[in-house]
């Protein structure tokens, strides 16, 4: 019983990082209705900038976090300008394929600049885990959960209570009409991309500081985990992204405990498979086709 609860706690903690990754994904997918496969690699670039700062200049975790988030945001803008801005509306597949090409480009660039496979990454805290009855709570895990909940609330606030949020929701609703009311759609989309990648940067920093190392494979890992968590949670739903991440984390933690680490990654795909079969809309998303009848865009 204690194991069950401890595993669930660990799962929730790790799951909150998946949720953060899914949050950035959801923001891009919700606004653009397009899949950015380069999302994870943008975060990985931020991580590499961070590790250089750490290894070369001995920067502390906060400075590394700041540069990593900034680096991820800039890499995100680079991807947006290259793969998304030039593609016309409705060319979703084209931008997905080009974001795949940029994924490879970013990954190879990282390998060329820093050819060793792994680089060290600073830990966030080195303190002993908190004891809570028979259970152990890691401090960096708690920070992860706090960041996930705080950022979700911040994004909800930004979307529903600010002018920029109004613009983004207008673009989600109807991009042509958003142009017509005078929203600078191109700038708004670019900023949304930067914000999404910055959120990914927060998630990436928290994960890397727990792992205490970064590899070029981190990009693929982040894209996959974020994508799976987003699809389980429901495409385009902000609370769904966090819930999906938490569920994924809990399932993975239990599977690792009962079936071993090889089964852990398999479990993620099985959960996704079951959801796609039984409840394709995800936890909080709308199933495809059940949308309010929106007027056709020209």
């Amino acid at each position, binding site marked *: 019983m204690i194991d069950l609860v401890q595993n669930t706690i660990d799962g929730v903690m790790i799951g909150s990082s998946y949720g953060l990754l899914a949050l950035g994904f959801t923001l891009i997918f919700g606004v653009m209705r397009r899949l950015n496969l380069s999302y994870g690699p943008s975060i990985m670039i931020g991580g590499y900038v961070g590790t250089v700062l750490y290894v070369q200049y001995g920067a502390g975790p906060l400075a590394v976090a700041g540069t990593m988030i900034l680096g991820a945001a800039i890499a995100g803008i680079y991807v947006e300008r290259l793969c998304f801005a030039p593609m016309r509306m409705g060319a979703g597949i084209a931008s997905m394929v080009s974001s795949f090409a940029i994924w490879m480009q970013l990954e190879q660039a990282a390998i060329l600049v820093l050819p060793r496979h792994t680089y060290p990454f600073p830990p966030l805290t080195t303190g002993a885990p908190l004891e809570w009855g028979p259970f152990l709570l890691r401090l960096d895990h708690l920070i992860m959960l706090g960041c996930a909940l705080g950022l979700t609330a911040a994004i909800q606030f930004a979307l529903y209570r600010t002018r920029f949020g*109004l613009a983004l*929701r*207008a673009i989600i*609703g*109807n991009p042509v009409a*958003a*142009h*017509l009311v005078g929203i600078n759609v191109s700038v708004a989309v670019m900023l949304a991309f930067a914000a999404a990648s910055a959120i990914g940067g927060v998630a990436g920093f928290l994960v890397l500081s727990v792992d205490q190392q970064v590899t070029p494979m981190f990009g693929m890992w982040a894209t996959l985990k974020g994508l799976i968590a987003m699809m389980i949670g429901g495409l385009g739903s902000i609370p769904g992204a966090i819930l999906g991440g938490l569920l994924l984390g809990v399932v993975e933690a239990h599977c690792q405990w009962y079936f071993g680490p090889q089964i852990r990654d398999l479990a993620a795909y099985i959960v996704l498979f079951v959801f796609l079969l039984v409840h394709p809309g995800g936890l909080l998303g709308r199933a495809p086709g059940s949308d309010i009848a929106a*007027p056709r*865009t020209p």
Partner: protein
Amino acid sequence: MLDVTDLVTAYGKIEALKGVSLQVEGGKITCLLGPNGAGKTTLMMTIAGVLQPRRGSIRLKGAELAGLSPARIVSQGVALVPENRLVFPHMSVYENLLAGAYQRHDKAGVNADIERMYARFPQLHERSEQMAGTLSGGEQQMLAVARALMSQPRLLLMDEPSLGLAPLIVAEIFNIIAELNRDGTTIFLVEQNAHMALQVAHQFFLMEQGRITFKGTPGQLAEDEVIQRAYLGTRRAAG
């Protein structure tokens, strides 16, 4: 007020506008009639900046609009009520109106204007918290008009406001158009409903296959000829 000269807009190699020239006089209702595929919506989208013209000029009181972004054109005082209304379906009526005032920063003025829209369109007031996607077609049309008015336009462009609406609602929409014009808004209207359009218009243009083929006042051409050309085009009417 609006001077369009030799405007060419193309989709790839196909020119939808083949050198359109027309003028909209300030304070009046100008109507553009023509069959499907004549290029009317393309013209509206080009004036609003959503489509970029290949050649020609669009001048608003002498200032060039061609080449500007849609956002800049809104700030110049041009607002388009698009074909099919295009309200933001998952935003409330109130938020749709707020979005219409996106470029304005005078909060008090925006709130006062929203109250004015509620007074003019009481259905919108009743449904202010309702998602726009759940409104009826007529209510969505009124919302689209109110949203465009929120930017305080000098020139209001309307693309087929009667499309898909019941006759009673169409009559109401045209009443609103006449009323807005009496209050001083210049209106440039695209319509398929030639009968209703000719009742409110001060002047009208006929457009066929990307060109302006007639310009005049409503009394100048027999209504059945206008209707024939507006629905069928000259070529098929002659053959």
